[in-house]
């Protein structure tokens, strides 16, 4: 590089090397094999403290999310050599010099960083840029998607799934209560669902810090912090806000998970505030979605206009949620109890599986059958157990290497049965994992993760990376 080129010589738009032949850049093609960064349309790095924002293949900064005030980037912690989610807030010019704003941000962030819980994305570090233009904090990088994204794509969840998520969020609220911390902006977009079906609440306790740093003072409503559709009625006023405000927002989030809608929507903040402070939640939406009665009752209480009528604390909410879960489990148990059918079907699967296990050809046929069933059902959400699927993948891989006989016999039977019942009418495969695998017509094993199709190799690469 750096050689003066004769005029008229074609050069690569990416790396600047001369390009010959068909027009592909030989240098780019070789460099990729060495895993060097080839594409750098934006050579400058964006760094905050010890955190350097990562760049995508096209050279753009890698954004994980963008809100009204801040941008969240994928960044590398250069000291500890790990990846983090870095939230950066630009401080408006008007308050840039304000020591008070800076200190308020740091105080809020410090309080948030003290909170460590499996259901809360941990805050590792926070700071402000030396020139005072930006405040930032580095958070645990959570692999997965937000509850909002999940619902927008797959539609509302069933009561059991939604309840499980609400319970995990409530655990986070209980931990926060011990630190006297409130979230203030609990909403589906701040709930991450990990690839292992764990829930992690992000931006915990930071909503106010962000708002302070961003100088986002709503002129009509004073210091409004939050997202109107999921905010509690009291957040619209000037009175004090406590943990019961988060309980309201959790109720609204649970509502959204069950219906795909916020309980009170509107085109303007005024409109939303009017509804929230005046109307009861539109329970008809829940009834239409066949939400079980115990859950409707619980939602009514969490969404009460008067904070005094809501569960008084996260602990109290947890008791209510667990009681609700017990009732629902009982109901679901009754509704789905088909013991004869289930055991007959499963016995048949096991008998078949025994026959298949000794014959690679029928095993292949079985794969195909499972594949067809799975493909036919691939539009539906489908849950499998994570460990179960991993085992299945390894079996397939071993099978492809002619080594399936090295997998223990019992395990093989179970997995084959699972394959045969890949479309799982009897709830044979336990909940948890949002993966669906099938073999297509070209005999390529593919996995459908939500709407992303992955090949087996992609999946194995990803799995190895995760591990």
């Amino acid at each position, binding site marked *: *590089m750096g*050689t003066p080129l004769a005029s008229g010589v*074609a*050069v*690569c*738009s*990416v*790396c600047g*090397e001369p*390009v*010959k*032949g068909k*027009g*592909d*850049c*030989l*240098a*780019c*093609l*070789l*460099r*990729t*094999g*060495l*895993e060097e960064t*080839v*594409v750098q*349309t934006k050579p400058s790095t964006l760094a905050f403290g010890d955190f350097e924002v990562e760049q*995508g*293949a*096209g050279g*753009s900064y890698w954004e994980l999310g963008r809100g009204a005030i801040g941008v969240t980037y994928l960044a590398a912690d250069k000291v500890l050599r790990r990846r983090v989610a870095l939230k950066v807030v630009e401080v408006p010019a008007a308050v840039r010099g304000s020591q008070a704003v800076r200190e308020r941000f740091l105080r809020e962030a410090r309080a948030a960083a003290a909170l460590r819980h499996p259901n809360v994305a941990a805050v590792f570090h926070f700071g402000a840029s030396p020139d005072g233009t930006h405040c930032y904090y580095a958070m645990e990088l959570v692999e997965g998607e937000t509850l909002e994204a999940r619902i927008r794509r797959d539609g509302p969840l069933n009561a059991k799934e939604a309840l499980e998520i609400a319970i995990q969020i409530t655990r986070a609220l209980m931990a926060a209560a011990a630190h006297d911390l409130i979230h203030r902006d609990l909403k589906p977009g701040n709930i991450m669902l990990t690839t292992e079906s764990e829930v992690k609440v992000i931006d915990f306790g930071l909503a106010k810090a962000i708002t302070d740093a961003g100088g986002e003072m709503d002129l009509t409503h004073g210091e409004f912090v939050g997202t109107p559709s999921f905010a509690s009625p009291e957040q619209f006023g000037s009175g004090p806000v406590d943990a019961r405000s988060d309980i309201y927002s959790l109720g609204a989030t649970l509502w959204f998970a069950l219906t795909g809608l916020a309980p009170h929507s509107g085109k303007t903040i005024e409109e939303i505030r009017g509804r929230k402070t005046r109307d009861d939640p539109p329970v008809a939406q829940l009834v239409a979605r066949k939400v079980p009665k115990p859950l409707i009752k619980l939602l009514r209480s969490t969404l009460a206009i008067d904070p005094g009528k809501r569960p008084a604390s996260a602990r109290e909410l947890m008791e209510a949620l667990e009681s609700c879960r017990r009732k629902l489990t009982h109901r679901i148990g009754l509704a789905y109890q088909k013991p004869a059918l289930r055991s007959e079907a499963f016995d048949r699967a096991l008998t078949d599986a025994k026959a298949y296990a000794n014959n690679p050809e029928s095993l292949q046929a079985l794969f195909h059958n499972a594949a067809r069933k799975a493909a036919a059902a691939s539009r539906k959400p489908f849950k499998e*157990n994570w*460990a*179960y699927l*991993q*085992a299945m993948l*390894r*079996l397939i*891989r*071993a099978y492809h*290497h002619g*080594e399936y006989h*090295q*997998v*223990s016999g*019992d*395990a*093989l039977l*179970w*997995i084959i049965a699972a394959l045969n019942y890949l479309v799982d009418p009897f709830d044979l495969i*336990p909940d948890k994992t949002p993966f669906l695998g099938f073999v297509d017509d*070209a005999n*390529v094993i*593919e996995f459908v993760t939500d709407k*992303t199709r992955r*090949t087996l*190799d*992609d999946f*194995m690469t990803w799995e190895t990376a995760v591990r």
Partner: protein
Amino acid sequence: MILIETVSVNTRVRDEHGEGDLFPSTHWSVVLAARSSQAEPETARPALAELCQIYWGPLYSFVRSRGYTVHDAQDLTQSFFAFVLEHKIYARVDRRKGRFRSFLLASLKNFLANAEDSERTLKRGGGQDFLPLHEEQAEQAESLFQTHSRASSEDRLFDLSWAEALVAAGLGRLSADYKGESKEKLFNELRIFVAGGVDPLPTYAELADRLGIAESTLRSHVTRLRARYREALRAEVRRTVNTETEVDEELHELLHVLTEV
């Protein structure tokens, strides 16, 4: 629920055949290993033949650079392969420094020196039994030669042609994979992110819009494509070297040849 003792399955597969090695039978090391074994022709010949097919172009280019006509160069290249097999040239390779590329170039130089001395070595069409020559392949080789004909030395021309054949094989393999997955269109749209070129890269936003997918999806497609290409390319290199370290060395060396002044 633990169903299976699977932890070792992957590891075992990798350990036995080397990482990601799906083509042990066409590996240069198979050729090397076969030189002292009894089963040599059965394993070495097909392995060598496939490798030679891929790198026919660079060898032809080198012969052309010595001033031979198109037809003579074709014949000589074919004869060279026949000669390599007939005389088991590969049996003399020092295993410690046995890269396929250097082996072929050194052997070719020797062969040409002898051919210039003695017309009898030039058996017209002598290599056909071993390696049939297709018209398309011959044309591609000639175009490869023309592309690099102004290289500063014949060795450099050979290495550049080699690099070209190598990345073409990697891209070809990847393209076939995408095609097999009915993602040919996606591959064609995204290959610029791997192959670069004169045209500026499209922005993610405009390409995502054109393909009707989310920008984040596009990003992950690109990341995946690059990772897959990287593996495909390295797999090709792996076929011509002995160890994993040599894969990096080979790529570095070719890149160095390409970018040197």
